[in-house]
């Protein structure tokens, strides 16, 4: 990547003997929407906090705009963060919250007010400027937090699981707000989440982390269809992991590429026992147990469900075409 905005070079962070982040290398381009995803404790939040200057790396260096930032304190960086808890100041009203960053930077009161009102308007909060924070709904607070971070017009916005406290229907709406904002402003978003749907639907690139290391970086589709490791395949979900031909080799077949049949079909197939089904909107996931006790999944249509009418314990065959197979790196 030429002239990246952010560059992590061999960055590590340890707390005592616990290594939260190990030898992380990552470049983030200008104007890119990057999601860092992984299970809790994978080091994603630590990575974000190091970028904001709230944690100091134990090793390696972090550059922003080519400048090494390791020892630059948080308040001298321009890396506003949208917090999981939002961290709005309860003793200030909406406008004062939005003005806080400008006040700390010594911008005059009149200009502060003008810019705060502009951003509140932009985020659909016109008329709410004198409200107290506890008089707002969850979605409104979310937008105040966004306005507070964006009002200083930073080059980069950090987001730490900002939607995790919202109702599902609000999450979808806020995802729309965030992607639109990111495109309009053309700034870099670094978005930390454990939610696959949030990461995959918004980000240009997804970074999957596990145990303090990057497991895979790629476009959402690539990560979904071609997981590099077993960890990624399992974390992304809806994948079937099958033994490969060579020892130690493993294959991945996505659940939506699996065909369920009652009799043994031609080609690649395995015998499985039906466990249960799960409704996910219009699609249905069948869960099976393979002969070795492994869990297997197939995404089927409503017609298939009606035709097969599976009973727990019933035997089926799962088959797949050779071109839907992805071979993973050996463990």
């Amino acid at each position, binding site marked *: 990547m030429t002239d990246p905005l952010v560059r992590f070079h061999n960055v590590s962070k340890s707390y005592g003997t616990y290594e939260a982040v190990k030898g992380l290398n990552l470049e983030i381009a200008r104007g890119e929407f990057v999601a860092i995803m992984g299970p809790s404790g994978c080091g994603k939040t630590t990575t974000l906090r190091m970028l*904001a200057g709230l944690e100091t790396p134990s090793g390696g260096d972090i550059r922003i705009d080519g400048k090494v930032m390791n020892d630059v304190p948080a308040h001298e960086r321009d890396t*506003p963060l949208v917090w*999981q*808890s939002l*961290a709005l*100041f309860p003793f200030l009203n909406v406008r004062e919250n939005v003005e*806080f*960053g400008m006040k700390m930077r010594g911008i005059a009161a009149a200009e502060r007010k003008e810019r705060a009102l502009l951003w509140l308007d932009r985020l659909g909060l016109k008329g709410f400027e004198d409200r107290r924070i506890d008089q707002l709904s969850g979605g409104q607070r979310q937008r105040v937090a966004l306005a507070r971070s964006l009002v*200083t017009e930073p080059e980069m916005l950090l987001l730490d699981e900002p939607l995790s406290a919202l109702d599902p229907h609000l999450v979808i709406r806020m995802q729309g707000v965030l992607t639109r904002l990111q495109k309009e402003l053309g700034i870099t978003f670094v978005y930390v989440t454990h939610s696959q749907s949030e990461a995959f639907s918004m980000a240009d690139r997804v970074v999957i982390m596990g145990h303090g290391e990057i497991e895979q970086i790629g476009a959402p589709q690539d990560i979904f269809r071609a997981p590099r490791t077993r960890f990624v395949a399992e974390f992304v979900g809806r994948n079937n992991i099958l033994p490969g031909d060579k020892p130690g080799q493993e294959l991945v077949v996505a659940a939506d590429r699996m065909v369920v049949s009652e009799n043994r079909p031609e080609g690649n197939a395995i015998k499985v026992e039906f466990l249960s089904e799960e409704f996910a909107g219009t699609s249905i996931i069948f869960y099976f147990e393979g002969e070795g006790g492994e869990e297997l999944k197939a995404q089927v249509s409503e017609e298939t469900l009606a035709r097969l009418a599976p009973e727990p314990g019933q035997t089926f065959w799962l088959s797949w075409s050779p071109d839907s197979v992805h071979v993973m790196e050996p463990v």
Partner: protein
Amino acid sequence: MMRKSSILFQIYLVAIFAFIFAPIITSMIFSFNSDRFPTFPLGHFTLHWYETAFARPEVWLAFRNSAVVALAAAFLSTILGFATAYTDFRYGFRFKSAYLALALLPPTIPLVIMGLAMLAWLGRMGLSGTLVGIIIAHTVMGAPFAMAICRLRLQSMDPALEAAAWNLGASQWSAMRHVVLPFCLPALISAYCLTAAVSFDEFIVSWFVSGLNKTVPVMILEILQGNVDPQINAIGTVVFMTSISLVIVAQVMIFKKSSQ
């Protein structure tokens, strides 16, 4: 059944309050009674005892001493208490539990011991018998209360709040000034009022260290040693009203946190 037990409970509650407040109320009533001795039936209403008590310059002086000591000791206690509570909130370090135990220790020391120790220590420093000496003693006694109140408030603060301020360009000191202190303001007011009340009422340690600069409780004892006089009731009523007002403000401010 339910009704009966709830009535019993209410009677119990009234009895407790009567038990606690009866002596104070009685003293208040006799402070307005014209008779020289506290006996029933009462005489007529009078402000005579207040007039005579507050005509005495030593009473005014004692009130002035008490006010100076209470205001200054409460100020210092609140600063110390807040600083200790913040250290606990913000930092983890070795021997932290020992540090906290030490900070909370003073109220567990018997007052006579505390008074003697203060007398010896302040005497050595040449502060015995001075207002500064009493202020030091009362600061030591008040700080743990202030710390407990500030700690309660800080526990309800989102730890991300301070970091959010840094993230928005506030230095450590600006974050303290613009975020932590405003958040803790109700607790600071509460701590100030409560420690002022503690100081204003405190007798034993004051008695040891006050010397000629008597505070109100010490002066009351001196008057009592001379003769029993309804003036004591008048002074006592003023002291009680002052303390209870401070405590009420302190309580209101503590409960304010739940609404925010």
